[in-house]
């Protein structure tokens, strides 16, 4: 029998979030010290809040897939494909938002189902399958879209737009959507039995099966969630710019994955943190926006990412023991 140590020990389940948070604060301090004239004004935060929700909503779904022991690299192409479904329906139906959103989400869902099916039922590697799907879906998007840029100046002052991406004082509406979605997915991941099954699927699927958990279905639903979140990101993106272009998914892949890992979700599966993801996404977007705002060349962003990812992984390892391997 081992002895109990005296003193307060931070519960294990809070450590990844806390680690990610400490890292975020540290980064803020550095940014503020380096360029107080930029980082002590409201403007920079409004700029960050504009794009943060899109990365974070995408990343939330990736926490599920990663915790389930899989990976999804197809989402950067699901965004423009589902986005195309949305834009096209808007044009065809004279701006019937409900119908367009429904079709868009259906397309995202179908892409996720296909990925999930290929990975679980056919037993293919998710890394390679979704890499292939990433190419296939962007190809399909370009074939269908045929190079068109669809602008929707009509959207500029629609009611839907102000609900989706309007602003409440300095805070863009999409921040509230992020808060709502993060809350729901946080409950689902950390409190709902589905979340437990996801983590078990990534840790020891045999243990789950022996207890009657449907591991295949659980994993498929994770890929479906990615597809649906990609569709939501597509809709928000289109409203944000009042434009559809088939390259709208570019620039999501690496920052979103980085947000997952910087947030404290280990690549090895079996664990994950929704709170950490939100902080991780904030970290990533902060670097993206912050580096440029300080007047540094955009090239520095990548360097910043690299440093942050490696440092934060080291930090998580120190802080949470065998969390990351």
């Amino acid at each position, binding site marked *: *029998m081992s002895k*109990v140590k005296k003193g307060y020990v931070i519960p*294990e389940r809070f450590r990844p979030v806390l680690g990610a948070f400490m890292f975020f604060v540290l980064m803020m301090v550095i940014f503020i010290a380096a360029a107080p004239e930029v980082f002590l004004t409201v403007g920079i935060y409004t700029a960050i809040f504009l794009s943060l929700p899109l990365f974070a909503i995408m990343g939330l779904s990736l926490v599920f897939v990663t915790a389930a022991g899989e990976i999804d690299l197809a989402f950067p192409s699901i965004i423009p494909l589902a986005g195309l479904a949305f834009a096209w329906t808007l044009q065809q139906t004279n701006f019937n938002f409900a119908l367009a959103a429904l079709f868009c989400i259906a397309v995202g869902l179908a892409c996720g189902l296909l990925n999930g099916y290929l990975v679980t039922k056919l037993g293919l590697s998710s890394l390679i399958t979704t890499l292939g799907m990433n190419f296939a879906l962007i190809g399909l998007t370009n074939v269908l879209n045929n190079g068109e840029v669809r602008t929707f100046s009509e959207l500029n002052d629609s009611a839907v737009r102000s609900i989706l991406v309007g602003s409440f004082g300095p805070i863009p509406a999409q921040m509230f959507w992020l808060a709502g979605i993060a809350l729901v997915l946080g*409950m689902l991941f950390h*409190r709902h039995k589905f979340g*437990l099954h996801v983590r078990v699927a990534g840790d020891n699927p045999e*243990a789950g099966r022996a*207890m009657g958990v449907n591991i295949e279905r659980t994993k498929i639903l994770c890929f479906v969630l990615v597809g649906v979140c990609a569709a939501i990101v597509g809709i928000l993106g289109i409203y944000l710019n009042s434009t559809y272009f088939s390259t709208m998914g570019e620039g999501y892949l690496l920052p979103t994955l980085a947000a997952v890992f910087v947030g404290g979700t280990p690549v090895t599966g079996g664990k994950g943190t929704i709170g950490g993801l939100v902080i991780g996404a904030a970290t990533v977007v902060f670097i993206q926006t912050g580096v440029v705002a300080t007047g540094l060349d955009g090239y520095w962003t990548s360097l910043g990412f690299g440093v942050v990812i490696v440092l934060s992984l080291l930090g998580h390892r120190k802080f949470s023991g*065998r969390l990351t391997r």
Partner: protein
Amino acid sequence: MSNQPIVKLVDVNKSYGNVYALEDINLDFYPGEIVSLVGDNGAGKSTLTKIISGTEAPDTNGKIMVDNQVVNNWSSAKARARGIETVYQNRALSEQQSIYDNVFLGREITNRFGIINRKKEIEETESLMRKIGYTSKVWTPLSSVNKLSGGERQGVAISRAILFDSRLVILDEPTTAMALTEAAEVLEFVRNLKKSGKSVIFISHNPWDAHAVADRFVILERGKIVFDGPKGSMSADDFIALLHKFAKKDIKS
């Protein structure tokens, strides 16, 4: 032991291709009894437990009876529904999850939206851990399983059996590859299972462990039952001598 058997096997055979894993097995398992099932490697012990727990079907001529009724299309789901629980050694637990998550895995206590009632699960896990004889004060139901010793892990898996109203718990080599104190802990868990009214089938290659917990011995050799009798006053040495006798016979034939 008294009254009717929980499980009764009648003329059960099992062959894999032309290998007979089990031949003409007739066995009864009674309430509140620990049966130590022993025999050499490949004797058919695991196969026997798989048939009882519904993960393997016997050849067509034999019968499985539960509560004196013949069961058809026996499956692991049906076995579990009838109170027969198997503790698998390696595939039992999700190590990165907490003890209580593991105990309730697949049978979570939730509200109608599927949100887990953590408070209730944690409370019940705590009382289970006490019931089964956890001695370490370090672990709470919130501890993750990868911190536990091998013996304590078995304890988590075994405590599920108590929780889910099982009547017959099958443990296939629960002490294999364990240090002495760990194995002793598991034996204590097994005795506590019996105290809470469960029957146990205990498989082990360690004759002392098998002797220590048993009420009754069943010795299998090459798919056949060569001994089936109560422990009575048999000492560990007598039991080991008995095992040697059958092993020798086996070599001669």
